[in-house]
Every structure is written in C-alpha cells, then in structure tokens.
C-alpha cells in the first residue's frame, strides 16, 4: 500500500491534468466556494465528498464552465487544464465542454433514439466524416460505456425506454463519444439501484485508463471503492485532499474525521 501511495504522489507532481488556484464561486450573495486550490491528476479517479450543500457539485461545474449557464453565478480564480486557463477570453466554453465531458445526477438521455443520443456530440462537433465513420464512433462509445451488448439490436429504439442504470451508462457513453480528456460525474449513481450502481462503478474504474475522472458522490463507500484520490468539501471550503486510502483511514483534519465517522453531514 505504501508503494502505491508513492506512485500516486509522483503522478500528482508530474501529471496534474487540472489545476485550480484560489477559486471562489458566488451565487448572488451566497459564497458557495471559498478559495479552493487543487491539483487533479490524469488517468485517475478523483472523488469529491462532503455534506449536502458543501459546494462539491458547484466546484465540479466550474471545471467545464457549466456555471456560465446560470445567470447569477460568478466564478473567480484560475483553473487550468493541461496548463491552459479555461476562463480565458479566447477559450470557447462550447469547445471546452466537448473536451471535458459531463454526466449528471439524473440520467438525462435525449428523447431520441439510442443511436442519435450517442451521435449527438460527434454531430455537433463534426467528428464523423461519413455514415460508416459515425457508426464506428457510436459502436465504440457504446462499447466503452459497457452497454453495447444490451442495446446493439435496438439502436433505433428511444433512449428514454431503457432502464435507469442503462440510461446512465448511455449518458456516460454519450459523453465519451465526443472523445473528452476529462470526465466529470455529478453523483452519477444517486438515482440508481445497487446493481446498476455496481455496473456504473465498474465502468468508472475502466474509464480511468484513458481519462481523468472526477466524481461527486454522497456515498463514502462509493468514493472508497472507485477513487484513488479524495477531496473533502465542507461549507464551501476544501478541507482535505489526498489519497483516498489516507482520507478514509487517517484523516488529518478533525472535520474530515467527523464526517467520515458520521458526526457531521
């Protein structure tokens, strides 16, 4: 275990995919995120945990500028992906969101066919040169999303007709189809039953090979199961960030310990 931790630490130093420095988020008068700085490594699952309303989802939404779509939300501070400031004027948030995929709490397949759901991103970004090209992209994404075998015979059936767990994997596949580098997941399993949750967690673990995955979760067990790094948020502060193993066994901040042992939250 010690060796592994060493490797992780090396990763952090050499290979920070996303870095945030002094990020503050305000919704009107509410100060939702207070001076958060964090380095999120590549090819790792990083989980954000914390009690409801602690700002973990808000912070996640900063990473692909989804907060831009909320009128009263103001983000300050510096966030870089691969060293490039994403809040810079020259960065097109639309391009950024293709590069940083997002999966939401409630499965939200479009009311279109399974095929069209996956093809949505590639189409709007012009990734496919031909029909066969698109077919390949769709198949690849569905395979990566671990749902290909369940839907390959009914690609033109509506995506809304799938079960909850299948819908969520469809949404993950849809996010993968635009070939992002980072995958953000906002409580992806909170609307799913235990079996579907297990399938999605397995998928998240596989996705780690290619992507930097950031997952917000309410379930500490889930954070412990799927992530290598864990960040604990409390009342808008990033309280503690480190290897998952350490956060759950030997937290350095008393607030983290209280949360993990169930005294706050």
């Amino acid at each position: 275990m010690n060796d592994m931790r060493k490797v992780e630490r090396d990763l952090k130093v050499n290979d920070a995919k996303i870095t945030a420095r002094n990020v503050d988020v305000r919704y009107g008068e509410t100060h939702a995120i207070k001076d958060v700085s964090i380095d999120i490594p590549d090819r790792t699952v990083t989980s954000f945990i914390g009690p409801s309303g602690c700002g973990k989802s808000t912070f996640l939404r900063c990473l692909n500028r989804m907060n831009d779509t909320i009128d009263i939300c103001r983000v300050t501070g510096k966030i870089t992906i691969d060293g490039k400031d994403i809040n810079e004027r020259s960065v097109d948030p639309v391009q950024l969101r293709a590069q940083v995929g997002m999966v939401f709490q409630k499965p939200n397949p479009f009311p279109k066919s399974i095929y069209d759901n996956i093809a949505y991103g590639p189409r709007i970004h012009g990734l496919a040169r031909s029909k066969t090209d698109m077919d390949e992209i769709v198949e690849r994404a569905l395979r990566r999303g671990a749902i290909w075998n369940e839907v390959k015979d009914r690609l033109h059936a509506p995506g809304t007709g799938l079960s909850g767990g299948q819908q969520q994997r469809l949404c993950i596949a849809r996010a993968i189809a635009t070939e992002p580098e980072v995958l953000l997941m906002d409580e992806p399993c909170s609307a799913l039953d235990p079996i579907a949750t297990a399938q999605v967690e397995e998928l998240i673990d596989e996705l780690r090979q290619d992507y930097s995955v950031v997952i917000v979760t309410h379930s500490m067990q889930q954070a412990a199961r799927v992530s290598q790094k864990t960040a604990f948020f409390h009342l808008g502060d990033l309280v503690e960030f480190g290897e998952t193993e350490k956060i759950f066994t030997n937290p350095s901040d008393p607030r983290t310990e209280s949360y993990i042992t169930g005294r706050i939250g």
Partner: protein
Amino acid sequence: MTTLAFLLLIVATIFGYFLNRIAARSIWNRGERLHSLTSYHGLFSALMVLVPVLTIMLFWLALEGRILDSLTMSGLPDGVLDGQGTGGLQLILAEIKSVSRGQIFGTPEDWKIAAADRYIALTRTSNMLMLIVVAVLSVAIIAFARSRVRVDFRARQGVERIVSGLMIFCSVVAIFTTLGIIFSLTFETYRFFEKVPVWDFLFGVNWEPQIPIRADQIAAEGAFGWLPVILGTIVITVVALVVAVPVGLFSAIYLNEFAPPKVRLVIKPVLELLAGVPTVVYGFFAILVVAPAIRSFGQSIGLDVAPNTALAAGGVMGIMLIPFISSFADDALSAVPQALRDGALGLGATRGEMMTTVLFPAALPGIVGGVLLAVSRAIGETMIVVMAAGLIARMTINPLESVTTVTVQIVTLLIGDTAFDNPKTLAAFALGMMLFLVTLIINIFALRIVRKYREAYD
C-alpha cells in the same frame, strides 16, 4: 318571488353548513375522534341542500313558461282561436302577456284581458308553489343531514362524491353543447341541400347568394358555389400564419432561452397584452392604417393593389395571433426539463444547437398545439375580415386582391332580412358546417403529425 326562493336556498345552505358543523364540533368537544373534519360535516349538509334544490328550481323555471302558456291558451273561450296558424297563436299569446304586464296597445278584446288576469294568477301560484317546495325540501334535507352527524359518519367521502358528481356534470355540459350545435348545424344544412344540390355547393366556383327572399324583390339569380369563399379563407389564414408563426416562435425562443430575465419580464406581459386587444380594434387598424399603407406602397412600385386586400386583413390577423403562438411555445419550451438542457450544453452544444436539436423536438406537441389554436382562430376570425377584407367572392390566390371569407359571408347572409325557409339564409348554416368540418380535419391531421414526430420526454 323567484329571488326570494333563491335567497331562501342560500340561507338554508349556510344554515345547514353551520348546523352540522356545530353538531360535529360538539361531538368532537366530548373528546370523541371524528371520522371526518367538522368542516366536511358542514359541507356535506350544505351540498346536500344546495345541489338537489337548485336543480329542481332550475328545472321549474325552465318548464314553468311552457306550462303556463299552454294553461293560458287552453283556458281561452271556445271559438276565438279558430282558423289561427302557429304565428297567429304566438301573436295572441304575446299580446296576452304584454297586457298582463300592463302594456296595453289599443283596446284588447275582453277575453284577452280575462286571459291576462288568469295568466297573472297562474304565475303567482307557480311562484308561491316553488317557494313552498324549496322551503319544505330544504328543511327536510337539513333535518336528514343533521341526523347523519355521528362519530363514524363518512362526511368526507360524501362531500367528495357530490363534488365529483358536479365535475362530471360540468364536463358533460360541454360535450352536450357541442353535440347540440353539431345537430342543429346538420339539420339546417340538410334543409339547405334540399334546395340547392350538394354538387353545386361543393364544386361551384360562383358565389352570388343575394337572391330574393320575397316575391316582390329584385335580386340576383343566385349561385351557391363555396369554393371562392373557402379559398378566400385559406388565403387569409395562410397570410396570417406566415406572419404569426415565425414571429411568435422566434419571440418565444428568444424569451425562453436568450433574453436576460429583465427583458423577459417586460416583453412577455406586453406580448400577452396583444391578446387582449379586441378584434374590432385590430379591424380598424387594418382598414385605416395597414390597407392604405399597402396600397400606396404597392402603387409606388407599380402594382395594382385593391383597397381591401387579403394581405392587410391577414397580416393584421397574424399580429393578433402572435401571442397565442408565442405563449404556447414558451410554455412548451419551459416545460422541457432542465436536465435535457444541461445534457446538451454539457456535450458542448451552443444554446442555438440545444434549441434546435433538443428543446424544439421535445416541445413540438405544445408548439403545434399553439399553431393549431392559431389556425382555428384565423379560420373562425370574423371581425377583422368583415372590416378589412372585401365582400366579393373571387377565385384568386393573389393576396393583393380583395377576397371574402366564410365567416364574412355567414355574417352578410344573416344580417338584414332573413327567412328560414330560404336558401340564402340556410346557406349560412351550410357554410358553418363546412367551417366546422375543415377545422376538425385540420385538428385530426395535426394530431397525427405530432404523434408521429414528437420526442417524448418524461
């Protein structure tokens, strides 16, 4: 007297409510656990009184007139009615009634005055009888309802049953009214087709309905081909939709997705204000402002424009329809879940792409519903076209010419001298029937199309 009966009923209702409520309350005060809240006990009594007694009163008032009339007429002395037709009988009855109200013209015969006295007496008896019936029934029902107040009496279920009965009644009223309208239309249309062949009506290209309705009038020969009239309706409707659909849709999309909240707060009520402008105001706007403007513009570029154009009437009608389409589309777009917007934006769609590829297909049924309503309004709209479109039926699709519409023709056919055994008057019913069928067919087709292309979200 009738007012008194109504007042009595209201008092009985309120009295029943409080009587039962207080009775239930006293049981509750004894520490018992009532099945229903005390207010349900009160409501139960109130509704038990109100609904049946009111029904009886309304029936009474509806039937009273006929019974009194026939009693009055049958009481007339023998022989005075000999040789009178239906019209004559009605005239005599009307005279008797006006005498009973004290409006006496000339010197009525003695038997008419006697009949008027009897009519007054009968009316008084009937009113008195109604008052007694209302009073007795109210007291009886209140007593019955009061006797039901017990710990385990299910007043709540009783109230809900009565209310759901009222709801069923209300929904049935609408259906039966529609059926009644269809029936009378069908009947009169049938009479029209007895006088004018169906084929002449359906496929005739001449519409000259101004035929004489009395032997001494000089008028046209008459031709009842509806094609030029419905063509006029279609031209004006198309013009109106060409104006209303794009403007309404784009304003809805702008308000829904792109407008800053402050702008939305101002524009939306103003837009809805358009729906509140009376159509007659639109009518004179069309005839006094828009039509001359179109005419002078057309002449300045060398076009021959009629003083009353389909373009002016249709264009102004389009403006009238904008709020229908925009508010329906706005509601439909707002109803699309935020999750779908987030999903599209999260994949890197711009707001425009999100609108066209996700929101619009999902909101399609609501949007089409608004457009359909607008089509029905446009086809049925009368005031603007009466004022701003012409009266001459022409087979033309040129919006710069004067055209006439089905509704305009119905109005002109029924204004002035009418006789209900004349094809000129009956033609109005035939046109109404066709209008009804056309709107029905459009609705059915549109629903089919929506069902085929909609993208259902849940």
